[in-house]
């Protein structure tokens, strides 16, 4: 199973849980199982612009982010983009 870690605001919205263990083959499959999926994805199903995802410490970017494959022990960390000063 992959482990998904949420930042504080999302953890509150997930009922106080910041760590989820999920069966998922890709980043998208993992994120769409979360109880906060409607905060991560907009109504068109697109990942919101200012959400970054790190898989095993690597910032996964680009159009194929959601198709990024996960290993059995992958750690997926959701992070709000650092923006501003």
């Amino acid at each position, binding site marked *: 199973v992959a482990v998904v870690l949420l930042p*504080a*605001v*999302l953890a*509150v*919205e997930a009922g106080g849980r910041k760590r989820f263990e999920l069966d998922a083959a890709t980043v998208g499959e993992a994120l769409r199982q979360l109880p*906060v999926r*409607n*905060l*991560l994805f*907009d*109504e*068109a*199903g697109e990942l*919101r612009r*200012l*959400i970054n995802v790190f898989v095993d410490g690597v910032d996964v970017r680009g159009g194929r982010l959601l198709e990024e494959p996960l290993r059995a022990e992958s750690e997926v960390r959701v992070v*709000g*983009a650092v*923006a501003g000063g």
Partner: protein
Amino acid sequence: MGVVLPVGTRKGLFLLSSADRSSWDVEGPLLQGWAVYHAIVDPRDGTLHAATNNPFYGATVHRSSDQGETWERAEELGLPEDGELKLNATWHIEPGRDSELWLGGDPGVLFRSDDGGRTWQLNEELFAHPTRERWQPGAGGMCTHSIQLADGALYVAISAAGAFRSEDDGRSWTPINQDVAAEFMPDPYPEVGQCVHKLLVHPQHPERIWQQNHCGVYRSDNRGDTWERLDGNGLPTSFGFPLALDPEDPDVAYVIPEQSQEHHYTADGRLGVYRTSDGGASWELTAGGLPDRAWVAVLREGLAFDGDGIYFGTQSGSVWTAPRGGAKWTEAVRDLPPILSVEAAAA
């Protein structure tokens, strides 16, 4: 009767409560991490509803049935999946006539909930209004910020689309912008496109509507069919955002003018609430207790009233209160995060 003020800030919700409107208890921040554009206590069941926005996680609505102890987020809220538009922000929540709730948002959209705010249905008729292509966003986005229910009619005001009235519970919408200026448009009196900043219907006299507009303060005595411009006569400028009324006297209104459309702070560096008691024919400054020199801003949702008092919050984090009439102001709390909204509810 005590009062509770739900105060929405850029950094969460605060609840100010007072039994005597003189000493205040401050609870918060609740909903940390969310900018609370507007929050209400539903007078029908005491539920707190908050229009919540986050730059990372989007626009939603939260509800609490235990005075803010625990919160539930809306389960369904958004625009059609196959469309080009997305919900950019939630702006205003209004209790309905029966058990329903109404929600205004950006881009110029209206939602209705029939399950206490858990799920929200888009008002398709306003969304597909034939004039929509002539609407444009103001500096705060294209926000549906005013929702009023009165005498069988439903009103919305959108910046910058203008005001609209529905006589059939939202199934059709008529623009009500005659004689309202849009000086920033090639045609300064168009059918739609006016930049309404706040619109209120008088609770006891539903034919009388007031609006603070980008281009003046207006009053209508015929449910918005025609409008009379009221600025001058004691108002330092015609520009401002918030508006308040007196729950019993339809000739009383309050505004907080700003310097200009370019300079969003108090007119003449003087924090003051301007009051009319003659339907807008003349305005007087009520500033007792307020600082002589201040360059602050009060946003469109930042001014509230009830039968006993009037209340406003500043972008600098102060909440000021005065007994009805506004003769003497006192600072209830200071140094909150930038205040986006203030409402008043019986406690």
